[in-house]
Protein backbone atom coordinates (compact mmCIF):
# COMPACT_ATOMS: atom_id res chain seq x y z
CA UNK A 1 0.00 0.00 0.00
CA UNK A 2 1.42 3.33 -1.05
CA UNK A 3 0.23 6.89 -0.86
CA UNK A 4 1.51 9.26 -3.51
CA UNK A 5 1.19 13.02 -3.58
CA UNK A 6 -0.21 14.47 -6.74
CA UNK A 7 -1.00 18.21 -6.94
CA UNK A 8 -1.33 18.27 -3.15
CA UNK A 9 -3.87 15.47 -3.35
CA UNK A 10 -3.04 12.21 -1.66
CA UNK A 11 -3.58 9.37 -4.10
CA UNK A 12 -3.77 5.88 -2.66
CA UNK A 13 -2.34 3.08 -4.72
CA UNK A 14 -2.30 -0.59 -3.96
CA UNK A 15 1.30 -1.07 -4.99
CA UNK A 16 4.16 1.25 -5.81
CA UNK A 17 5.34 1.63 -9.37
CA UNK A 18 8.13 -0.93 -9.12
CA UNK A 19 5.94 -3.68 -7.73
CA UNK A 20 3.28 -3.00 -10.35
CA UNK A 21 5.93 -3.14 -13.06
CA UNK A 22 7.20 -6.48 -11.77
CA UNK A 23 3.71 -7.95 -11.98
CA UNK A 24 3.22 -6.73 -15.53
CA UNK A 25 6.64 -8.00 -16.54
CA UNK A 26 5.95 -11.47 -15.21
CA UNK A 27 2.62 -11.60 -17.04
CA UNK A 28 4.41 -10.57 -20.24
CA UNK A 29 7.09 -13.17 -19.68
CA UNK A 30 4.51 -15.88 -19.10
CA UNK A 31 2.58 -14.89 -22.22
CA UNK A 32 5.77 -14.96 -24.30
CA UNK A 33 6.65 -18.45 -23.07
CA UNK A 34 3.17 -19.65 -23.84
CA UNK A 35 3.24 -18.17 -27.38
CA UNK A 36 6.60 -19.76 -28.06
CA UNK A 37 5.40 -23.14 -26.76
CA UNK A 38 2.29 -22.97 -28.86
CA UNK A 39 4.35 -22.12 -31.92
CA UNK A 40 6.58 -25.15 -31.30
CA UNK A 41 3.56 -27.42 -31.06
CA UNK A 42 1.85 -26.02 -34.11
CA UNK A 43 5.04 -26.31 -36.20
CA UNK A 44 5.15 -30.08 -35.90
CA UNK A 45 1.41 -30.57 -36.17
CA UNK A 46 -0.04 -31.75 -39.45
CA UNK A 47 -2.94 -29.36 -39.55
CA UNK A 48 -4.58 -31.27 -42.36
CA UNK A 49 -5.22 -34.10 -39.89
CA UNK A 50 -6.52 -31.67 -37.31
CA UNK A 51 -9.03 -30.13 -39.70
CA UNK A 52 -10.02 -33.64 -40.64
CA UNK A 53 -10.40 -34.59 -36.96
CA UNK A 54 -14.20 -34.16 -36.66
CA UNK A 55 -14.74 -36.57 -39.53
CA UNK A 56 -12.32 -39.12 -38.06
CA UNK A 57 -13.82 -38.74 -34.62
CA UNK A 58 -17.27 -39.32 -36.06
CA UNK A 59 -15.97 -42.33 -37.95
CA UNK A 60 -14.38 -43.88 -34.86
CA UNK A 61 -17.48 -43.04 -32.86
CA UNK A 62 -19.74 -44.84 -35.28
CA UNK A 63 -17.52 -47.93 -35.24
CA UNK A 64 -17.31 -47.86 -31.44
CA UNK A 65 -21.06 -47.76 -30.94
CA UNK A 66 -22.60 -49.92 -29.72
CA UNK A 67 -19.96 -51.55 -27.50
CA UNK A 68 -19.50 -55.28 -28.06
CA UNK A 69 -21.13 -56.47 -24.84
CA UNK A 70 -20.41 -60.16 -25.36
CA UNK A 71 -16.71 -59.32 -25.08
CA UNK A 72 -17.38 -58.56 -21.41
CA UNK A 73 -17.09 -62.22 -20.40
CA UNK A 74 -13.39 -62.26 -21.29
CA UNK A 75 -12.74 -59.12 -19.24
CA UNK A 76 -13.44 -60.47 -15.73
CA UNK A 77 -10.08 -62.13 -15.31
CA UNK A 78 -8.06 -59.07 -16.45
CA UNK A 79 -10.21 -56.92 -14.17
CA UNK A 80 -9.37 -59.18 -11.20
CA UNK A 81 -5.69 -58.92 -12.14
CA UNK A 82 -5.98 -55.14 -12.26
CA UNK A 83 -7.51 -55.08 -8.79
CA UNK A 84 -4.69 -57.27 -7.48
CA UNK A 85 -2.01 -55.12 -9.05
CA UNK A 86 -3.47 -52.04 -7.41
CA UNK A 87 -4.12 -53.54 -3.99
CA UNK A 88 -1.01 -55.66 -3.52
CA UNK A 89 1.09 -52.92 -5.11
CA UNK A 90 -0.24 -50.44 -2.54
CA UNK A 91 0.47 -52.85 0.31
CA UNK A 92 3.99 -53.40 -0.98
CA UNK A 93 4.53 -49.66 -1.30
CA UNK A 94 3.29 -48.94 2.23
CA UNK A 95 5.55 -51.60 3.72
CA UNK A 96 8.55 -49.88 2.16
CA UNK A 97 7.31 -46.30 2.57
CA UNK A 98 6.98 -46.38 6.37
CA UNK A 99 10.67 -46.86 7.21
CA UNK A 100 11.66 -44.45 4.42
CA UNK A 101 9.30 -41.82 5.80
CA UNK A 102 10.73 -42.12 9.31
CA UNK A 103 14.20 -41.84 7.85
CA UNK A 104 13.22 -38.74 5.87
CA UNK A 105 11.35 -36.78 8.53
CA UNK A 106 13.60 -34.21 10.18
CA UNK A 107 12.37 -35.01 13.68
CA UNK A 108 12.76 -38.80 13.50
CA UNK A 109 15.68 -39.42 11.16
CA UNK A 110 18.60 -41.23 12.75
CA UNK A 111 21.06 -39.03 10.89
CA UNK A 112 20.49 -35.81 8.97
CA UNK A 113 23.81 -36.14 7.22
CA UNK A 114 23.64 -39.66 5.76
CA UNK A 115 20.26 -41.34 6.20
CA UNK A 116 17.99 -38.40 5.36
CA UNK A 117 19.52 -37.58 1.95
CA UNK A 118 19.35 -41.27 1.05
CA UNK A 119 15.67 -41.44 1.99
CA UNK A 120 14.92 -38.24 0.07
CA UNK A 121 16.73 -39.63 -2.96
CA UNK A 122 14.57 -42.76 -2.86
CA UNK A 123 11.46 -40.60 -2.58
CA UNK A 124 12.36 -38.28 -5.43
CA UNK A 125 13.53 -40.95 -7.82
CA UNK A 126 10.59 -43.30 -7.30
CA UNK A 127 7.94 -40.64 -7.58
CA UNK A 128 9.46 -38.67 -10.45
CA UNK A 129 8.99 -41.62 -12.75
CA UNK A 130 5.54 -42.60 -13.89
CA UNK A 131 4.30 -46.11 -13.15
CA UNK A 132 4.02 -46.79 -16.87
CA UNK A 133 7.76 -46.20 -17.23
CA UNK A 134 8.49 -48.38 -14.21
CA UNK A 135 6.32 -51.05 -15.83
CA UNK A 136 8.19 -50.67 -19.11
CA UNK A 137 11.45 -51.12 -17.25
CA UNK A 138 10.26 -54.10 -15.21
CA UNK A 139 8.78 -55.83 -18.22
CA UNK A 140 12.18 -55.52 -19.86
CA UNK A 141 13.84 -56.94 -16.77
CA UNK A 142 11.56 -59.65 -15.36
CA UNK A 143 9.31 -60.30 -18.31
CA UNK A 144 5.69 -59.38 -19.01
CA UNK A 145 2.84 -60.20 -16.65
CA UNK A 146 0.95 -59.21 -13.52
CA UNK A 147 4.05 -59.53 -11.35
CA UNK A 148 5.89 -56.78 -13.25
CA UNK A 149 2.84 -54.52 -12.96
CA UNK A 150 2.55 -55.14 -9.25
CA UNK A 151 6.19 -54.29 -8.62
CA UNK A 152 5.95 -51.22 -10.87
CA UNK A 153 2.94 -49.87 -8.95
CA UNK A 154 4.68 -50.70 -5.68
CA UNK A 155 7.88 -48.87 -6.56
CA UNK A 156 6.10 -45.88 -8.03
CA UNK A 157 3.99 -45.46 -4.89
CA UNK A 158 6.88 -45.61 -2.39
CA UNK A 159 7.93 -42.05 -3.01
CA UNK A 160 4.39 -40.71 -3.05
CA UNK A 161 3.37 -42.40 0.20
CA UNK A 162 6.68 -41.75 1.95
CA UNK A 163 6.58 -38.05 1.04
CA UNK A 164 3.08 -37.47 2.38
CA UNK A 165 3.84 -39.58 5.44
CA UNK A 166 7.05 -37.80 6.33
CA UNK A 167 5.33 -34.45 5.96
CA UNK A 168 2.71 -35.72 8.40
CA UNK A 169 5.46 -36.84 10.78
CA UNK A 170 7.10 -33.43 10.62
CA UNK A 171 3.79 -31.73 11.40
CA UNK A 172 3.00 -33.65 14.58
CA UNK A 173 2.41 -31.83 17.84
CA UNK A 174 5.81 -32.02 19.48
CA UNK A 175 4.64 -31.41 23.04
CA UNK A 176 2.93 -34.82 23.00
CA UNK A 177 6.25 -36.40 22.08
CA UNK A 178 7.96 -34.33 24.78
CA UNK A 179 5.45 -35.54 27.35
CA UNK A 180 6.13 -39.18 26.52
CA UNK A 181 9.89 -38.57 26.55
CA UNK A 182 9.57 -36.95 29.97
CA UNK A 183 8.14 -40.16 31.45
CA UNK A 184 11.44 -41.88 30.80
CA UNK A 185 10.23 -43.83 27.77
CA UNK A 186 12.79 -45.37 25.40
CA UNK A 187 13.21 -44.24 21.81
CA UNK A 188 10.91 -46.93 20.43
CA UNK A 189 8.31 -46.32 23.10
CA UNK A 190 8.28 -42.63 22.24
CA UNK A 191 7.75 -43.69 18.63
CA UNK A 192 4.79 -45.99 19.35
CA UNK A 193 3.12 -43.79 21.98
CA UNK A 194 4.02 -40.26 20.97
CA UNK A 195 4.34 -40.33 17.19
CA UNK A 196 2.43 -43.28 15.71
CA UNK A 197 -1.01 -42.40 17.16
CA UNK A 198 -0.64 -38.90 15.75
CA UNK A 199 0.10 -40.05 12.20
CA UNK A 200 -2.34 -42.96 12.03
CA UNK A 201 -5.16 -40.91 10.43
CA UNK A 202 -2.74 -39.52 7.87
CA UNK A 203 -1.45 -43.02 7.18
CA UNK A 204 -4.92 -44.44 6.61
CA UNK A 205 -5.83 -41.49 4.41
CA UNK A 206 -2.68 -41.87 2.33
CA UNK A 207 -3.22 -45.62 1.90
CA UNK A 208 -6.76 -45.16 0.63
CA UNK A 209 -5.84 -42.19 -1.54
CA UNK A 210 -2.98 -44.07 -3.17
CA UNK A 211 -5.03 -47.23 -3.65
CA UNK A 212 -7.56 -45.17 -5.55
CA UNK A 213 -4.85 -43.68 -7.78
CA UNK A 214 -3.20 -47.08 -8.25
CA UNK A 215 -6.40 -48.65 -9.48
CA UNK A 216 -6.60 -46.00 -12.19
CA UNK A 217 -2.97 -46.42 -13.11
CA UNK A 218 -3.06 -50.19 -13.18
CA UNK A 219 -5.81 -50.14 -15.80
CA UNK A 220 -3.30 -48.94 -18.39
CA UNK A 221 -0.20 -50.88 -17.36
CA UNK A 222 -1.16 -53.60 -19.83
CA UNK A 223 -0.27 -51.23 -22.67
CA UNK A 224 3.38 -52.05 -22.02
CA UNK A 225 2.70 -55.70 -21.21
CA UNK A 226 2.46 -55.53 -17.43
CA UNK A 227 -0.86 -57.33 -17.03
CA UNK A 228 -4.38 -56.23 -16.24
CA UNK A 229 -7.15 -54.95 -18.44
CA UNK A 230 -4.75 -52.71 -20.36
CA UNK A 231 -3.55 -55.80 -22.24
CA UNK A 232 -7.02 -56.24 -23.76
CA UNK A 233 -7.11 -52.52 -24.54
CA UNK A 234 -3.80 -52.75 -26.35
CA UNK A 235 -4.95 -55.80 -28.30
CA UNK A 236 -8.21 -54.18 -29.33
CA UNK A 237 -6.47 -50.96 -30.37
CA UNK A 238 -3.97 -52.86 -32.50
CA UNK A 239 -6.74 -54.65 -34.35
CA UNK A 240 -8.78 -51.40 -34.61
CA UNK A 241 -11.64 -53.20 -32.87
CA UNK A 242 -13.25 -49.95 -31.74
CA UNK A 243 -16.39 -51.57 -30.38
CA UNK A 244 -14.21 -53.57 -27.98
CA UNK A 245 -12.21 -50.47 -27.10
CA UNK A 246 -15.38 -48.63 -26.16
CA UNK A 247 -16.50 -51.54 -23.99
CA UNK A 248 -13.15 -51.64 -22.19
CA UNK A 249 -13.31 -47.89 -21.61
CA UNK A 250 -16.78 -48.27 -20.11
CA UNK A 251 -15.49 -51.05 -17.83
CA UNK A 252 -12.49 -48.95 -16.76
CA UNK A 253 -14.76 -46.00 -16.08
CA UNK A 254 -17.05 -48.19 -13.99
CA UNK A 255 -14.06 -49.56 -12.04
CA UNK A 256 -12.83 -46.03 -11.36
CA UNK A 257 -16.25 -44.90 -10.17
CA UNK A 258 -16.57 -47.95 -7.90
CA UNK A 259 -13.08 -47.44 -6.48
CA UNK A 260 -13.86 -43.80 -5.79
CA UNK A 261 -17.03 -44.79 -3.95
CA UNK A 262 -15.22 -47.50 -1.98
CA UNK A 263 -12.40 -45.17 -0.96
CA UNK A 264 -14.82 -42.40 0.01
CA UNK A 265 -16.68 -44.90 2.18
CA UNK A 266 -13.49 -46.24 3.76
CA UNK A 267 -12.27 -42.71 4.44
CA UNK A 268 -15.57 -41.86 6.10
CA UNK A 269 -15.38 -44.97 8.29
CA UNK A 270 -11.90 -44.17 9.51
CA UNK A 271 -12.08 -40.44 10.10
Amino acid at each position, binding site marked *: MVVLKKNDLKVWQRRDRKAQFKIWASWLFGAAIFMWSWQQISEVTTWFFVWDAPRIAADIGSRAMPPRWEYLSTLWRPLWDTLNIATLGTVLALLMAVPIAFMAARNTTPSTLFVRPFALLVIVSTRSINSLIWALLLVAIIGPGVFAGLIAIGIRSIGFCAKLLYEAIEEI*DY*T*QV*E*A*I*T*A*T*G*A*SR*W*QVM*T*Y*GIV*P*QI*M*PAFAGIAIFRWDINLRESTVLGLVGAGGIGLQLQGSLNTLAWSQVSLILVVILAAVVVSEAVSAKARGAII
Partner: protein
Amino acid sequence: MLQLKKLSKIYKTGDKALSAVDLTVPQGQVMALIGPSGAGKSTLIRCINRLVEPTSGSITLGDVEITSLKGNSLRQQRRRMGMIFQEYALVERLTVMENVLSGRLGYVSFVRSFLRKFPQKDIDEAFRLLDRVELLDMTDKRADELSGGQRQRVGIARALIQDPALLLVDEPTASLDPKTSRQIMRLICEMCEERKLAAIVNIHDVVLAKSFVQRIVGLEQGRIVFDGKPDDLTEKELTKIYGEEDWEDTIKKDESLA
Protein backbone atom coordinates in the same frame (compact mmCIF):
# COMPACT_ATOMS: atom_id res chain seq x y z
CA MET B 1 16.44 -32.70 47.46
CA LEU B 2 16.73 -30.98 44.09
CA GLN B 3 19.75 -28.80 43.74
CA LEU B 4 20.74 -26.60 40.79
CA LYS B 5 24.24 -25.13 40.74
CA LYS B 6 25.28 -22.39 38.34
CA LEU B 7 22.87 -23.70 35.74
CA SER B 8 23.18 -21.87 32.42
CA LYS B 9 21.56 -22.33 29.05
CA ILE B 10 22.51 -20.52 25.88
CA TYR B 11 20.47 -21.45 22.83
CA LYS B 12 22.10 -21.97 19.45
CA THR B 13 20.59 -18.66 18.35
CA GLY B 14 22.70 -16.98 21.04
CA ASP B 15 19.79 -16.26 23.35
CA LYS B 16 20.86 -16.49 26.95
CA ALA B 17 17.90 -18.20 28.60
CA LEU B 18 19.45 -18.99 31.98
CA SER B 19 22.57 -17.56 33.55
CA ALA B 20 24.11 -19.23 36.58
CA VAL B 21 20.93 -20.16 38.41
CA ASP B 22 21.40 -21.56 41.92
CA LEU B 23 18.32 -23.12 43.46
CA THR B 24 17.52 -25.75 46.09
CA VAL B 25 14.11 -27.32 46.58
CA PRO B 26 13.69 -29.51 49.67
CA GLN B 27 11.43 -32.57 49.79
CA GLY B 28 7.72 -31.84 50.02
CA GLN B 29 7.99 -28.19 49.07
CA VAL B 30 5.78 -26.72 46.35
CA MET B 31 7.59 -23.83 44.78
CA ALA B 32 6.14 -21.41 42.27
CA LEU B 33 8.36 -19.97 39.58
CA ILE B 34 7.08 -16.64 38.32
CA GLY B 35 8.42 -14.15 35.82
CA PRO B 36 7.59 -12.46 32.52
CA SER B 37 7.33 -14.43 29.28
CA GLY B 38 10.77 -15.29 28.01
CA ALA B 39 12.36 -15.08 31.45
CA GLY B 40 13.50 -18.71 31.13
CA LYS B 41 10.88 -20.46 33.28
CA SER B 42 10.10 -23.17 30.73
CA THR B 43 13.77 -23.61 29.92
CA LEU B 44 14.57 -24.06 33.60
CA ILE B 45 12.18 -26.93 34.19
CA ARG B 46 13.00 -28.55 30.85
CA CYS B 47 16.67 -28.48 31.79
CA ILE B 48 15.92 -30.43 34.93
CA ASN B 49 14.59 -33.46 33.06
CA ARG B 50 16.91 -32.75 30.15
CA LEU B 51 14.24 -32.17 27.50
CA VAL B 52 16.54 -29.17 26.97
CA GLU B 53 20.27 -29.70 27.30
CA PRO B 54 21.79 -27.23 29.77
CA THR B 55 24.95 -25.50 28.56
CA SER B 56 26.77 -25.61 31.89
CA GLY B 57 26.19 -26.09 35.58
CA SER B 58 24.93 -29.08 37.51
CA ILE B 59 21.62 -30.55 38.62
CA THR B 60 21.36 -33.11 41.40
CA LEU B 61 18.21 -34.96 42.33
CA GLY B 62 18.67 -36.77 45.64
CA ASP B 63 22.25 -37.84 45.25
CA VAL B 64 22.25 -38.35 41.46
CA GLU B 65 24.00 -35.93 39.16
CA ILE B 66 21.64 -35.52 36.20
CA THR B 67 23.51 -33.35 33.71
CA SER B 68 26.03 -36.05 32.82
CA LEU B 69 23.58 -38.94 32.39
CA LYS B 70 23.03 -40.69 29.09
CA GLY B 71 20.63 -43.25 27.58
CA ASN B 72 19.25 -45.75 30.05
CA SER B 73 20.34 -44.02 33.24
CA LEU B 74 18.87 -40.72 32.01
CA ARG B 75 15.54 -42.48 31.39
CA GLN B 76 15.67 -43.96 34.88
CA GLN B 77 16.03 -40.50 36.37
CA ARG B 78 13.25 -39.13 34.16
CA ARG B 79 10.95 -41.68 35.76
CA ARG B 80 11.54 -39.92 39.08
CA MET B 81 10.33 -36.61 37.64
CA GLY B 82 6.70 -36.25 36.64
CA MET B 83 5.92 -33.45 34.23
CA ILE B 84 2.64 -31.60 33.73
CA PHE B 85 2.23 -29.40 30.66
CA GLN B 86 0.52 -26.19 29.69
CA GLU B 87 -1.55 -27.56 26.80
CA TYR B 88 -1.95 -30.86 28.67
CA ALA B 89 0.22 -32.64 26.04
CA LEU B 90 -1.92 -35.75 26.16
CA VAL B 91 -1.60 -38.05 23.19
CA GLU B 92 -4.93 -37.00 21.80
CA ARG B 93 -5.74 -40.10 19.82
CA LEU B 94 -5.09 -42.52 22.67
CA THR B 95 -7.62 -43.34 25.37
CA VAL B 96 -7.50 -41.82 28.83
CA MET B 97 -6.25 -45.12 30.23
CA GLU B 98 -3.44 -45.37 27.67
CA ASN B 99 -2.43 -41.82 28.47
CA VAL B 100 -2.26 -42.56 32.17
CA LEU B 101 -0.41 -45.84 31.61
CA SER B 102 2.09 -44.05 29.37
CA GLY B 103 3.47 -42.72 32.64
CA ARG B 104 4.73 -46.26 33.30
CA LEU B 105 6.62 -46.52 30.01
CA GLY B 106 9.94 -46.06 31.77
CA TYR B 107 9.23 -49.18 33.84
CA VAL B 108 7.98 -51.70 31.25
CA SER B 109 9.61 -53.32 28.24
CA PHE B 110 8.94 -52.14 24.70
CA VAL B 111 7.00 -55.28 23.76
CA ARG B 112 4.70 -55.01 26.77
CA SER B 113 3.99 -51.36 26.11
CA PHE B 114 3.46 -52.02 22.40
CA LEU B 115 0.89 -54.75 23.13
CA ARG B 116 -0.66 -52.61 25.90
CA LYS B 117 -0.03 -55.47 28.36
CA PHE B 118 0.88 -53.50 31.45
CA PRO B 119 1.35 -55.29 34.81
CA GLN B 120 -1.85 -55.56 36.82
CA LYS B 121 -0.43 -53.44 39.63
CA ASP B 122 0.10 -50.57 37.17
CA ILE B 123 -3.46 -50.94 35.94
CA ASP B 124 -4.80 -50.92 39.50
CA GLU B 125 -2.75 -47.85 40.29
CA ALA B 126 -4.10 -46.18 37.15
CA PHE B 127 -7.66 -46.93 38.25
CA ARG B 128 -6.89 -45.54 41.72
CA LEU B 129 -5.46 -42.33 40.28
CA LEU B 130 -8.32 -41.92 37.84
CA ASP B 131 -10.69 -42.31 40.77
CA ARG B 132 -8.71 -39.74 42.73
CA VAL B 133 -8.95 -37.19 39.88
CA GLU B 134 -12.62 -38.12 39.41
CA LEU B 135 -12.29 -39.50 35.90
CA LEU B 136 -12.92 -43.18 36.54
CA ASP B 137 -15.91 -43.20 34.17
CA MET B 138 -13.81 -41.78 31.35
CA THR B 139 -11.27 -44.64 31.26
CA ASP B 140 -11.93 -45.70 27.67
CA LYS B 141 -12.77 -42.28 26.24
CA ARG B 142 -10.32 -40.80 23.79
CA ALA B 143 -8.31 -37.92 25.25
CA ASP B 144 -9.55 -35.44 22.65
CA GLU B 145 -13.14 -35.96 23.84
CA LEU B 146 -12.38 -34.42 27.24
CA SER B 147 -12.69 -30.81 28.40
CA GLY B 148 -9.62 -28.77 29.30
CA GLY B 149 -9.91 -29.34 33.03
CA GLN B 150 -10.46 -33.07 32.57
CA ARG B 151 -7.46 -33.32 30.27
CA GLN B 152 -5.24 -31.59 32.76
CA ARG B 153 -6.42 -34.06 35.42
CA VAL B 154 -5.40 -36.92 33.12
CA GLY B 155 -2.06 -35.14 32.75
CA ILE B 156 -1.69 -35.07 36.54
CA ALA B 157 -2.56 -38.78 36.80
CA ARG B 158 0.02 -39.56 34.11
CA ALA B 159 2.70 -37.66 36.02
CA LEU B 160 1.81 -39.29 39.35
CA ILE B 161 1.70 -42.88 38.11
CA GLN B 162 5.41 -42.52 37.43
CA ASP B 163 5.77 -42.57 41.23
CA PRO B 164 7.98 -39.49 41.03
CA ALA B 165 9.97 -37.72 43.67
CA LEU B 166 9.60 -34.38 41.95
CA LEU B 167 6.89 -32.76 39.87
CA LEU B 168 7.78 -30.32 37.10
CA VAL B 169 4.72 -28.29 36.26
CA ASP B 170 4.74 -25.97 33.25
CA GLU B 171 1.96 -23.36 33.24
CA PRO B 172 -0.71 -25.85 34.35
CA THR B 173 -3.52 -23.31 34.25
CA ALA B 174 -2.65 -21.12 31.27
CA SER B 175 -5.37 -22.62 29.04
CA LEU B 176 -8.04 -23.01 31.71
CA ASP B 177 -10.80 -20.77 33.04
CA PRO B 178 -10.33 -19.17 36.49
CA LYS B 179 -12.43 -21.66 38.41
CA THR B 180 -10.88 -24.74 36.82
CA SER B 181 -7.47 -23.14 37.30
CA ARG B 182 -7.98 -22.99 41.04
CA GLN B 183 -9.25 -26.56 41.13
CA ILE B 184 -6.25 -27.83 39.21
CA MET B 185 -3.80 -25.89 41.38
CA ARG B 186 -5.48 -27.21 44.51
CA LEU B 187 -5.34 -30.76 43.17
CA ILE B 188 -1.65 -30.47 42.38
CA CYS B 189 -0.86 -29.07 45.82
CA GLU B 190 -2.96 -31.72 47.61
CA MET B 191 -1.26 -34.49 45.68
CA CYS B 192 2.15 -33.11 46.54
CA GLU B 193 1.22 -33.00 50.20
CA GLU B 194 -0.22 -36.54 50.20
CA ARG B 195 2.86 -37.96 48.59
CA LYS B 196 5.46 -35.62 50.04
CA LEU B 197 6.53 -34.51 46.59
CA ALA B 198 8.63 -31.53 45.76
CA ALA B 199 7.26 -29.47 42.89
CA ILE B 200 8.32 -26.59 40.71
CA VAL B 201 5.31 -24.84 39.24
CA ASN B 202 5.76 -22.31 36.44
CA ILE B 203 2.91 -19.93 36.62
CA HIS B 204 1.83 -16.62 35.11
CA ASP B 205 -0.91 -15.85 37.57
CA VAL B 206 0.77 -14.26 40.59
CA VAL B 207 -2.43 -14.14 42.65
CA LEU B 208 -3.07 -17.82 42.08
CA ALA B 209 0.50 -18.67 42.95
CA LYS B 210 0.42 -16.70 46.17
CA SER B 211 -2.71 -18.38 47.42
CA PHE B 212 -1.44 -21.94 46.99
CA VAL B 213 2.31 -22.29 47.40
CA GLN B 214 4.77 -21.98 50.27
CA ARG B 215 7.58 -20.40 48.34
CA ILE B 216 7.89 -18.15 45.32
CA VAL B 217 10.91 -17.66 43.10
CA GLY B 218 10.98 -14.80 40.63
CA LEU B 219 12.94 -15.16 37.43
CA GLU B 220 13.89 -12.28 35.20
CA GLN B 221 16.11 -12.60 32.12
CA GLY B 222 17.45 -15.93 33.30
CA ARG B 223 18.37 -14.75 36.79
CA ILE B 224 16.69 -15.29 40.14
CA VAL B 225 15.63 -11.86 41.42
CA PHE B 226 13.31 -12.94 44.20
CA ASP B 227 13.16 -15.94 46.50
CA GLY B 228 10.89 -15.93 49.50
CA LYS B 229 7.51 -16.47 51.10
CA PRO B 230 4.39 -15.31 49.24
CA ASP B 231 3.88 -12.55 51.83
CA ASP B 232 7.28 -11.06 51.10
CA LEU B 233 6.31 -10.46 47.49
CA THR B 234 5.82 -6.69 47.72
CA GLU B 235 5.20 -4.06 45.09
CA LYS B 236 8.91 -3.40 44.96
CA GLU B 237 9.71 -7.05 44.32
CA LEU B 238 7.06 -7.39 41.62
CA THR B 239 8.45 -4.35 39.87
CA LYS B 240 11.88 -5.97 40.00
CA ILE B 241 10.52 -9.09 38.29
CA TYR B 242 8.02 -7.71 35.84
CA GLY B 243 8.87 -4.03 35.52
CA GLU B 244 6.89 -0.89 36.39
CA GLU B 245 3.13 -1.38 36.80
CA ASP B 246 0.43 -0.65 39.33
CA TRP B 247 0.66 -3.69 41.60
CA GLU B 248 -1.82 -2.51 44.24
CA ASP B 249 -4.56 -4.94 43.22
CA THR B 250 -2.31 -7.94 42.88
CA ILE B 251 -1.18 -7.55 46.45
CA LYS B 252 -4.49 -6.44 47.93
CA LYS B 253 -6.52 -9.20 46.36
CA ASP B 254 -4.27 -11.64 48.04
CA GLU B 255 -4.86 -10.08 51.45
CA SER B 256 -8.61 -10.24 51.01
CA LEU B 257 -8.33 -13.90 50.06
CA ALA B 258 -6.23 -14.62 53.08
